[in-house]
């Protein structure tokens, strides 16, 4: 997904549930496998797992740990000997003196709240409507899903055409495109976060719709029948029968949405580089790299805050998923 997902969007929970019917007694069979392995086989296996693991661990996990270590240092990035241990100074400075930090945290929270409150139920609603085996279902589906396929950067450009103060669609329609009467959707710090969030929600809805559509396809049709035989109306069936069976999908949706909210970056960067009013943690980290101020320790401290927040979500989710895995 970053992808966000979203690149963004790429989370394995979609596959959380293994396909049904793992062979019973597979455990024994696999142990049998092991005994048959020759020395060469063992070396082959070692390489097959080893090469990808080294690459992944080195570029993802070692760097994540390095972020933690660097967060307690100050470094100009030029020579290793300029790395100095500063303890909690970076964090102290971040929490107390950085005027952008708390707004960024707040914006990330708002981002999540909006995504879960607007596009998620809307996506669910659309999925329920499209699941009714109606005609043109594919056409509607495609229309809602199209934004998910397009890059966030491109979406940023498209929405700028809508929000532009003098040439944009909204201001042209409401006549606010004359100098002096501008509504500056992207420049006004009270408005811009909401303007970006509309674009983000626009994209997120289609994503949620697809996840829910897949979830709905898995609902046992006999449940529906039973419920209509009992005389339940559409809303009652949904509320009491369908929605409860969507629990696994809801978990996926929740995790995807939190991660998307933490990863949010491209759209804001294309809009206004996270200036005034649209600060995000991801933007603050990036500014420390792209900008001229190479304050590595400080940037890492922000990354650590982002890491801690993500782990609060990732760990319980993985524990639950993998517990299920082990059972199968």
């Amino acid at each position, binding site marked *: 997904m*970053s*992808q*966000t997902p979203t*690149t963004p969007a*790429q989370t*394995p929970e*979609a596959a959380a*549930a*293994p396909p*049904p019917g*793992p062979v019973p007694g597979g455990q024994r069979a696999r142990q049998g*496998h092991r005994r*048959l*392995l020759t020395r*060469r086989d063992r070396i082959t*296996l070692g390489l*097959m*797992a080893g090469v990808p*693991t080294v*690459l992944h661990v*080195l*570029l*993802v*996990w*070692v760097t*994540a740990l390095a972020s933690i270590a660097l967060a307690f240092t100050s470094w100009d990035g030029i020579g290793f000997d300029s790395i100095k241990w500063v303890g909690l100074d970076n964090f102290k400075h971040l929490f107390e003196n950085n005027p952008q930090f708390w707004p960024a945290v707040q914006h990330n929270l708002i981002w999540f709240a909006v995504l879960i409150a607007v596009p998620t139920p809307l996506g669910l609603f*659309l999925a329920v*409507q*499209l699941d009714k085996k109606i005609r043109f279902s594919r056409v509607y589906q495609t229309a*809602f899903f*199209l934004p998910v*396929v*397009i*890059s*966030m*950067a*491109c979406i940023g450009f*498209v*929405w700028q055409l*809508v929000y532009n103060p003098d040439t944009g669609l909204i201001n*042209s329609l409401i006549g606010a495109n004359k100098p002096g009467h501008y509504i500056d959707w992207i420049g006004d710090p009270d408005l811009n976060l909401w303007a970006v969030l509309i674009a983000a929600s*626009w994209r997120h809805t289609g994503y949620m719709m697809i*996840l829910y559509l897949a*979830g709905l*396809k*898995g609902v046992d049709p006999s449940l529906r029948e039973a419920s209509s035989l009992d005389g339940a*109306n559409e809303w009652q069936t949904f509320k009491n029968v369908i929605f409860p069976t969507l629990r696994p999908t809801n978990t996926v949706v929740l995790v995807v949405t939190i*991660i998307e909210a933490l990863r949010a970056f*491209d759209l804001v*960067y*294309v809009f206004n580089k996270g200036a005034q009013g649209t600060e995000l943690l*991801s933007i603050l*980290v990036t500014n420390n*790299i*792209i900008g001229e101020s190479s304050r590595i320790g400080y940037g890492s401290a922000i990354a650590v805050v982002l*890491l801690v927040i993500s782990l609060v979500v990732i760990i319980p989710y993985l524990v639950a*998923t*993998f517990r299920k895995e*082990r059972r*199968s």
Partner: protein
Amino acid sequence: MSASTVAPVRRTPVRPARILLHVFLAGTALAWLAPLLWAVFSALRPYSETSDRGYVSWPHKLSLDNFTNAFQQSDMLHYFGNTLLIAVPAVLITLFLSSMVAFYVSRFDFRLNLALLLVFTAGNLLPQQVIITPLYRLYLLTDLPGVTESGKLYDSALGLVLIHVAFQSGFCAFVLSNYMRSLPHELTEAALVDGASVWRLYWQITLPLCKPAMAALATLLSIWIYNDFFWALVLISTGENMPITSALNNLSGQYFTDPNLVAAGALLTAIPTLVVYFVLQRQFVSGLTLGSSKG
């Protein structure tokens, strides 16, 4: 639904409600496409016309000029080429490496299997910004004289390929290991008893059975990697080396002073992913939801 009184007994599903639903869905779908349609409309009009008459006005002249100009002025072909040079190897290597890991964890019960899969899966869930600062330094420090044009991992296609592979293999390993676990064990068992090597079990028996999952993942990965903005933004510094998405961001500030031209440029960058999506829709959607319907 209320209309059941109108249509007696027959199984015909409530007509008026259906019509209402279609009206609603068609209206919403159109509204959904509005920003994109607006971009297309703007891109089709010359700047001179919109600056005289305003953007919301009846078009007098519609042409593809903006598209051809954007394509030529910004040398888009070159940037599309850069993207291709990054995305094709990245997708192939990711699938190759992650399928090996998946094979390892799903077909054998070594003690650390679950932990290994956990490492991959969790890595993919991290926000990219968590690792970018040390990664950027690492790329700057890695000297590769003669291997890349920049002489470093930084500012090279190779560097982008590596991080895409490392990052995305987490997701793919997880999906593929679930998929492989659903394959009957007897297949590989029999081959192993017959003396087939582990490599053969992987390459000739397991992989061909994974084609549907691999196709779904390949579609998904191509679109994600093509759409990547962040890695390229930070890890590439020379404009010439940028892939198309970050190049457009760069160029729109430098050369384009005309929103219609930017619209055309942005739409052009979206075309390849739209084509992939329309051609491989089924694979794409099944990749996104792989397994989630079976929960």
